């Protein structure tokens, strides 16, 4: 993760660097955390198989597993566009964390880490940290937000779905009919 620029101008306190008020305008950095009432290993195992992520990531159109560490991602972007990249796992600690980086040639260069930390009786704290180059800079990010494809909002929602699936065995929906449910997932 390229956090150096963010860290540089920052007073030392104990808060996560992603909550800094001193933004790096060229590179977006976000983190979202959720506590899930399940063991870390079980959550890690789910996440380690990229194909599973289609269930919880709303904007993920397709994922193609290339080999043990590489996968090809196709994600919905604003205005009906798709963006693609190849993701490479650069660091993997079973049951604890997975770090990835997009390979050269990505539509949106990105890197990130998902951590699974045991939280005693409360289960596991899952924290996703993502850094990316916002397409179209700050304006692009604003437009993405309008279309609800802003990565922070999306990450938060995806983690909620992950929590729902792992804690309850299903993803909550208000759909009344199977047809409505399909359209929602469309």
């Amino acid at each position: 993760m390229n956090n150096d620029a963010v860290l540089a101008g920052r007073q030392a306190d104990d808060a996560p660097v992603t909550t800094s008020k001193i933004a790096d305008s060229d590179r977006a950095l976000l983190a979202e955390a959720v506590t899930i009432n399940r063991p870390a290993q079980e959550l890690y195992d789910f996440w380690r198989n990229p194909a599973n992520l289609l269930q919880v990531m709303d904007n993920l159109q397709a994922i193609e597993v290339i080999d043990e560490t590489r996968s090809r991602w196709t994600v919905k972007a604003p205005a009906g566009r798709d963006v693609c990249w190849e993701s490479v796992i650069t660091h993997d600690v079973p049951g604890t964390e997975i770090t990835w980086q997009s390979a050269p040639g990505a539509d949106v260069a990105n890197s990130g880490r998902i951590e699974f930390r045991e939280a005693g009786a409360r289960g596991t704290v899952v924290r996703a940290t993502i850094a990316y180059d916002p397409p179209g800079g700050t304006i692009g990010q604003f437009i993405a937000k309008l279309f609800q494809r802003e990565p922070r909002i999306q990450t938060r929602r995806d983690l909620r779905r992950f929590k729902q699936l792992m804690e309850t065995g299903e993803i909550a929906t208000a759909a009344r009919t199977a047809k409505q449910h399909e359209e929602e997932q469309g």
Partner: protein
Amino acid sequence: MRALTWHGKHDVRVDTVDDPEIINPRDAIIKITATAICGSDLHLYDGYIPTMQKGDILGHEFMGEVVEVGAKSTLRKGQKVVVPFTIACGSCYHCGKHQYSACDNGNPADNQDIGRELYGQPMSGLFGYSHMTGGYAGGQAEYVRVPFSDVGPIVVPDDIEDEKVLFLSDILPTGWMAAENAQIEQGDTVAVWGCGPVGLFAVQSAFLMGASRVIAIDHFPHRLELAKKFGAETINFEETKTYEALMEMTGGIGPDAVIDAVGLEAHGFFVDNVIDQIKASSFLGTDRTHSIRQAIIACRKGGRVSMPAVYGGFVDKFPLGAFMEKGLTLKTGQTHVQHYMPALLNAIVAGKIDTTFLISHRMALEDAPKGYKMFHDNQDEVTKVVLKPDLTMAAE
């Protein structure tokens, strides 16, 4: 199926819509036998609650018969059930602590954003109460899809009348929790602001919890009469100076515990808040805070304040000084319905609690729009409208 749908301010209709289906493994489909119009439904009717969409099916007080179950439902076809208005998963940290209305998972992921913005953390899903609380179709219909059916619905005896148990879905547990939050001690004097269904159930509950006196405050004569039937002393605030009366009636001490059940018809959340956000000055805001303000001022030193009344946003002129100086305790919250249902069902079966006195009108589901209008126009006489899909529509 037929269902009561929302189309805008003072515009609800009974429409034909698609029948609900099992979507998730823990779902069940319930055929509705009885459903009630809640005071909080009137706020949808009045158009105060944002994130409503045309065609939304209303209703969060309902019961019926299980007609279909998902693979992981623990219900069986043919069982008679009452369904809580809060949609809770039973598996998260909060459900583990029986804080069901704080369930992390009952509200679909995308709908949780608004609750996070408004309150810091989103609350559970609710039936038939706008898209902020999940956008779930409600139970003023012939059928309803009930998620997490292994956690929410309570199975009731086949031979018990619907009307005796219907209010387990919301207002009875809400009134009970209001009294519980007042931490009543033997011999206490408890004052209750508001004699709507929740206030009336709080009166009943307070006596069961050991209060020796309950003083009920309202301005609708008929509602005060009902409170009197349960043994409450009454204050009509249009005719009486409430604070002065309370002080004199309690020998200058003030009530040991106070319950504000006035704002409750809002069920929540939004009214004050939204009004605040659009910076409109509103009579609602003033009215709503009045009862809690008065309750805090009247409450005895070191006493307890229970607030089932729902406040959605920010309040002005909250008597924080009186609250601190007198060392009061405040307990509040949306009802953890699932937690209270079993004990309250037992109390009903044992004849310790009666809820049927509340019902003033019984109508066919087809007549629901008429029911809304009546309830809206005459809150003194119309204390509760129960809708039954199998009743025939009244002749004009």
